[in-house]
């Protein structure tokens, strides 16, 4: 009797069957308001984005909108330039994603499956590099992109993100490949398969879950990048949605409704991705945090 009493008390740690209705009630009464407060900035953004400017100045941020102005969204999309900023973000993100994932998966295979001189050193260089503050790379990367005539083109961003993200992707994929049982490789080797065939026919399909997780995460990171877009792309025509949004903000300084409509449009891709691929996203992040 006493034991059940106590284990009921430990509700935080134990499984659902041990929860008493009372405690469950407390849990919801506490968590739901907390979450609502946590998300206030997002609700207010939603609310403000559909209001007219007069309504905002007249009634302050806390009143209900007097009218729903969907016009704000089309203004941000067309005049604000969000339509091409969005397009640019996709043009940059997708090829960069392909570059970093494919190259990292090749490298990760070698680092996970072969014993050779410098293995750990190379692996640690990839991991360490991915943790550097960006400022240490800024000036040389800016120059290099100038020298190679990539500066102020999509390619500057594609190549840089593609290269930089190899570090983190190699880290995650290498650790993932190491969990694949070695028998699979040995069997293939005995059958006379070349190492590249082993990689393509056995490793690649098995690492797909990890690649999916990484792709979701990396998509968000590259899509949300602000700093490199600031440094490597000048022309408004080529700006991705992050620096684009910053310019839109400069144009519509006090027009929070337009700014917020633009903001909401800008977050749609990553939010949609997060909603549908949440599991992968979270896996990607926790895989990266070590064991």
């Amino acid at each position, binding site marked *: 009797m006493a034991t059940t009493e*106590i284990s009921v008390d*430990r*509700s935080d*740690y*134990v499984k*659902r069957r041990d929860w008493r209705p009372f405690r469950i009630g407390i*849990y919801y009464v506490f968590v*739901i308001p907390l*979450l609502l407060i946590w*998300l*206030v*900035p997002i609700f*207010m953004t939603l609310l*403000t984005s559909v209001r007219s400017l007069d309504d905002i100045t007249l009634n*302050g*941020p*806390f009143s209900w909108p007097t009218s729903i102005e969907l016009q704000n969204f089309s203004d941000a999309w067309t005049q604000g330039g969000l339509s091409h900023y969005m397009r640019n973000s996709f043009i940059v993100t997708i090829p960069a994603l392909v570059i970093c994932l494919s*190259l*990292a998966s090749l*490298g990760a295979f*070698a680092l996970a499956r072969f*014993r050779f001189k410098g293995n750990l050193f*190379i692996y*640690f*260089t*990839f*991991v360490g590099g991915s*943790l*550097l*503050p960006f*400022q*240490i790379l*800024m*000036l*040389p990367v800016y120059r*290099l992109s100038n020298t190679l005539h990539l500066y102020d083109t999509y390619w500057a961003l594609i190549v840089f993100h593609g*290269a*930089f993200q190899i*570090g983190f992707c190699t880290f995650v994929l290498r650790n993932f490949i*190491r*969990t694949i049982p*070695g028998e699979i490789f040995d069997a293939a080797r005995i059958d006379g398969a070349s*190492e590249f065939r082993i*990689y393509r026919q056995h490793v690649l399909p098995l690492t797909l879950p990890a690649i999916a997780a990484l792709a979701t995460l990396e998509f968000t990171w590259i899509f*949300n990048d*602000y*700093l490199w877009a600031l440094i490597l792309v000048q022309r408004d025509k080529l700006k991705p949605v*992050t620096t684009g*949004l910053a310019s839109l903000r400069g144009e519509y300084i006090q027009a929070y409704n337009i*700014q917020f409509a633009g*903001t909401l449009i800008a*977050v749609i891709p*990553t*939010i949609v991705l*997060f909603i549908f691929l949440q599991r992968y996203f*979270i896996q990607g*992040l926790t895989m990266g*945090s*070590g*064991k």
Partner: protein
Amino acid sequence: MAQTTLPAAAAGAEARRKPAWRNTNRLTPYLFLILPIALYSMWVIGPMLYSVWMGFTNSDGISQQDFIGLDNYQRLVKDDIFWTSFYNNVRWLIAFITVPIAAGLSLALMLNNDLPGTRFFKAGFFSPMVLSSVVIGVIWTWMYQPYGLINELLAKLGREGMPIGFLADPNLVTWSIIGAALWRQTGYVMLLYLAGLKNVDQTLVEASLVDGASRWRAFKDIVLPMLQPVTVIIVVISIIDALRSFDLVNIMTRGGPFNQSNVLAQMMYIEAFNNYNMGYGAAIATILALISIVFIFVYLRRMLRDELEY
């Protein structure tokens, strides 16, 4: 893990018996690695080293780049903006290793159950993490305005007098920006702790409770020590993130007013790309990187220890 290392060793033994195998084996890893290494060296490792060199020059990005020894560093030590920025980075760092860890751990403990709706709550607390820093900057700048969300709310709650200048008051501005950053960081830390809690052996906790340990003691003496490895990783990652802080400062205040919210990364950006003091900027970047590298090494050393355990 032994499972995977044993066959690998066996494969190595087999390779030793057959010379032809060994030959292919020796080159193959490098063939797989050549492209990633080439690209990474060109855009990450090379630039890092080149920055260090630039820090010893007077480069202005156009006409000159002469070696001037430690001049940039001597100038830095006397530069008030450098010390303000450095001090602000320390504030970021302290905030990042305290608030998100306490709040993230509390959230994780609270949400570590499978009641209906919990998945959704987790996603909710975590959602700021998928927003870009520009989006967070735009939203929070508006919230901090004199007639923005927070001031209006305080007024509604009965606060009187002038609105608080969250982004204008030199004493407040850095903390205000950090506030926005914490909103994002906390969900991330929560997630890492939730992953960490999965590895905590529940039977141990339950056993201690059966033995009459208090709820707090079970947490302090069993759960917390088991979370220690995760905590170390989180602290190191948080420090590295705090040193990287740039986007929000650049978007919300550009380091103002009067550099009071400046951080090293933003100072470097202004020196290098606004004032064209590229040599000086590179020196700031080098200092920033050196501080980070200390913590990156802590992180890598931990990883190395795990590696050698295999």
